[in-house]
């Protein structure tokens, strides 16, 4: 099925009579993109499923207020990113964990291998990405895997493109360093 043009989709999403059908189309169009973005942040499938559902429920709730100052895609990315980071933050606070513990949890989820299919080098790469500071990890994933433009990432994270480019380049060098020490 060909995706509806964004303007048409938005008009339908904001029309009460067509909202449900249009939202169904939106979910079909963007669910995989959002799922894998969230999955790279929270790693575990069950957690991803929860965060994704919350993301889509919030999109449904707030789509009437969306004023198209960014694309629907970056708006959804922003909600998903916020929901995923909030999830990790609540998890950290709820379990009295610090950042290192959370990173260890994420590494543990990765090594458990549930719904993960990667050889040793792919897993090492994921471990390297998990070792990055949060913002660098987000930027690296969105640029390297999702191939978003810096402008889009800037919209999502509310950070200047200059800072994003620096973050990405730092991330690449740190990952390389990690892989070198592990080789």
């Amino acid at each position, binding site marked *: 099925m060909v995706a509806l043009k964004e303007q048409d989709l938005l008009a339908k999403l904001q029309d009460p009579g067509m909202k449900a059908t249009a939202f169904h189309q939106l979910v079909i169009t963007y669910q995989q993109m959002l799922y*894998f973005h969230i999955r790279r942040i929270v790693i575990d499938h069950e957690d991803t499923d929860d965060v994704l559902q919350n993301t889509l429920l919030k999109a449904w709730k707030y789509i009437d207020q969306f004023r198209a100052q960014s694309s629907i895609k970056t708006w959804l990315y922003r909600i998903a990113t916020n929901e995923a980071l909030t999830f990790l933050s609540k998890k950290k606070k709820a379990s009295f964990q610090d950042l290192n513990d959370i990173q260890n949890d994420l590494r543990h989820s990765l090594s458990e291998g549930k719904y993960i299919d990667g050889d040793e080098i792919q897993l090492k790469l994921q471990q390297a990405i998990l070792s990055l500071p949060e913002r660098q990890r987000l930027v690296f994933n969105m640029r390297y895997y999702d191939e978003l433009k810096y402008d889009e990432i800037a919209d999502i994270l509310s950070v200047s493109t200059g800072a994003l480019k620096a973050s990405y380049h730092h991330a690449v060098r740190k990952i390389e360093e990690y892989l070198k020490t592990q080789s």
Partner: protein
Amino acid sequence: MKDFDEHKDELKNAPFLDKMKRKNVFEVPENYFSEMAEDWKDKAEDEAIMEETRFLKNIEKKNIFQVPEAYFDQLPGKIAPENQAKPKIRLFWRNPAVNLSIAASIVILISLGIWGLFNRVSSQEADPSTLLSEVPTEILLASVDVSEYDINMIVETMGEEALKDWTEIQNLHLDEEEVSDLLDHFEVSDLEAALLENPE
């Protein structure tokens, strides 16, 4: 010039087409060409950085994350308006007993109708035993089915420290909707089983 002349001759046989104003009907989004140039410049810079690496550039770019069978077929149905519930909240049950303590604390506080009271009492002033003893039994029973376990046992098991530490609970920043959701999804049997598994 020969091509042009031939073209003019061809149009003589198509008078309607010859009279039509020539116009490019194809449009591009605003700033398309300038953004494309910027995008290519960014990609070139990124590739230059990647080329400097020895290990990373040789790893295949691959998505290693998988989903259960038919997950994406079923998700739109789960999100459909008629199936929408309130946003879900995770209780982190799979984690250690200390997480259980917090979740249990919140549930008990809510079920006893004293959540608001605790939010107004500082950690130094709060005394779980006193507060619990002031809760009328009918409120307690009306809120949660506690007939199968002794609430004092739960308080003792999870430790008063967890109950006293309101700051940690408040740091969860639960809004009313989430608190309501927490109650809706709370199962006494889960708590009981978890307590037995994690007595500390």
